[in-house]
């Protein structure tokens, strides 16, 4: 296993589109590193550049101690799992697994031993003599994973490997991948647009937007302190409430009358936005202590929780996460109270975290 270093990566296509503007990543040995972002943010291009399937316009990629810029994919000693599995349709599972080993020219007995070993690890025994067409989506993805594992590469690259699976299977495979990665101590770069996947899998997450890295941090870091307005709006479901505030009397005051405790070091001379997670707010009875008057716009009953959309006279409606026991009908007059600690604060103009 090896670490991966990406420096000042830039990729511009012949038609002029810039897929990756400026990306710096430093992925540790044995780390499960997730690249998260909306489609077109450059995450897949970055991954393909690491794999060697795309040649970057400028910038350096290092795997272990080797500068791999000019190495073809075959020489980089990495494995990749694709969204569409990319199992060779005319080969049985057994031969699909043996394929990369035969490409390396390993002796037959060694190939058989390694295939059996990985088949046992991934519980593929009964599937070995079937062709991809005869496998379900989940089985195909397990075979694709096994094919990546069988080579014992220096790093694994995963390009949205679970996107085509249904929800239940996706959760199972997520657990399986995380378990395998830990077991093998594998360096893994995992690309996804699904924040749940990113949060549950990643040791660290890089959030990409428009070909740039917006934030790199552990799942908790990116959840608690999104580094920019983009991250704040992207992470969390429902996302963070962004409330325009002014500093007055040592308090942050929103338009709807919501008063928040300011974090230390809040600048006074700029237009500010406070980021408040839905669970840092509470819907109370109308007129309750320390609450501002509000009205329920809508309520999503999710079973284990209720997401209220509340109009409190601010510029935007806010979303509030409440336990299912607190029930208010749409249109009801209620109170809105801030219950969390100090919020994160962003500069409206630069869209960056200021406190």
């Amino acid at each position, binding site marked *: 296993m090896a670490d991966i270093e990406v420096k000042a990566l830039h990729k511009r296509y*012949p038609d002029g589109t810039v897929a990756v503007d400026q990306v710096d990543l430093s992925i540790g040995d044995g780390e499960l590193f997730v690249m998260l972002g909306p489609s077109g943010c450059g995450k897949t291009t970055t991954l393909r550049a690491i794999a*060697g399937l795309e040649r970057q316009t400028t910038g350096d990629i290092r795997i272990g101690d080797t500068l791999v810029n000019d190495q073809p*994919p*075959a020489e980089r000693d990495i494995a*990749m799992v694709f969204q*569409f599995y990319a199992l060779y349709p*005319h080969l049985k599972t057994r031969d699909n697994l043996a*394929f*990369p080993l035969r490409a390396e020219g390993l002796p037959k007995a060694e190939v058989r031993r390694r295939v059996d070993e990985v088949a046992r690890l991934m519980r593929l025994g009964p599937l070995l003599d079937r062709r991809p067409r005869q496998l379900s989506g989940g089985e195909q993805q397990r075979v694709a994973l096994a094919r990546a594992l069988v080579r014992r590469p220096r790093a694994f690259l995963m390009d949205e490997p679970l996107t085509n699976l249904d929800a239940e299977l996706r959760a199972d495979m997520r657990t399986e991948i995380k378990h395998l990665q830990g077991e093998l101590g594998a360096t893994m770069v995992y690309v996804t647009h699904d924040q749940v996947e990113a949060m549950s899998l990643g040791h660290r997450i890089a959030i990409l937007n428009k070909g740039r890295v917006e934030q790199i941090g552990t799942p908790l870091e990116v959840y608690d302190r999104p580094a920019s307005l983009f991250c704040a709006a992207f992470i969390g479901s429902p996302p963070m409430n962004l409330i325009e505030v002014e500093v007055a009397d040592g308090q942050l005051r929103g338009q709807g009358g919501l008063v928040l405790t300011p974090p230390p070091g809040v600048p006074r001379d700029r237009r500010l936005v406070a980021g408040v997670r839905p669970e840092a707010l509470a819907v109370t009875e109308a007129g309750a202590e320390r609450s501002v008057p509000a009205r329920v716009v809508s309520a999503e009953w999710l079973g284990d929780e209720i997401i209220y959309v509340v109009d409190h006279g601010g510029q935007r409606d806010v979303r509030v996460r409440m336990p299912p026991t607190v029930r208010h009908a749409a249109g009801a007059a209620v109170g809105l109270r801030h219950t969390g600690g100090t919020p994160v604060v962003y500069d409206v103009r630069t869209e960056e975290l200021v406190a």
Partner: protein
Amino acid sequence: MAVSVDEAVSTGPARDRTPPGRRLGGRGRSVLEVALLTGLAVVMLFPVLWMIETSIKDNRDVYAIPAKFVGFRVTLEHFRDVFVAPGGGRSALSVAFLNSALVAGASTVLATVLGVPAAWAYSRFAVKAKKDQLFFILSTRFMPPVVVVIPIFLMYRQVGLIDSKIGLILIYAAFNVPFTIWMMKGFVDEVPAEYEDAAMLDGYTRLQAFWRYTLPLLVPGIAATAVFALIFSWNEFVFAIFLTSSDDVRTAPPAIAGLIGGTTTDWGLVAAASVVFALPVLVFAYLVRRHLIAGVTLGAVRR
């Protein structure tokens, strides 16, 4: 629409999938359909049938008035004449058939060898002005080939390709390459690029990945495309008659056409030669009929 509602009830709505607007009325429609199709089939197939009959008739019966549809003596002497010269030895027609096979085969192979990798490249790589290039390639097929026959003739005379098989092979390949690129690009687009990506990560170069993975998956498409190219080259008449003059080089279409005229026309021989000429194409088309349909309909439905 009351009629169609009644019908729908009587035939059972679940089984009746014909849209109401297309219904002409149960039995009446099928009789009309059969009648029209029969009429069409007769018109289309009668010349073919007559050709086959003529090819196996005695010369006496060929010229008989009134014409004999049935009850003539069957003979295979016309077919013998196609291949064997009157004094023994190889006939000019059989040489023409060999030339045709060689020219059509070689030009198809050439067009495929050039066109398939080109189609792959256009499908896989970011090429500058890709759409413009592809349009340019297609535009070479906009005009009927006969338009360029005179310039080609003059050029060929300059470079000494006139009356040579190589010349015919080159010109047919030139016409088939654009077609091959366009048709094959559709097939290549259908093969996910991930196969090649995966093979490249597994230790192969891009060319090896194409050769070992994409190419085998393209075989049905290549077969269909090649058959189209083969049929075009086999049937081509205008260039063949303009660019060739000697019996050693001449292909079958102008050679058969050359049988007509002069003082008498041996219709039995013309018919037999035509049957022999039509057979390979029929056999090929039959062998790859499923691919032909796939090739024609491919890309019509978006994934």
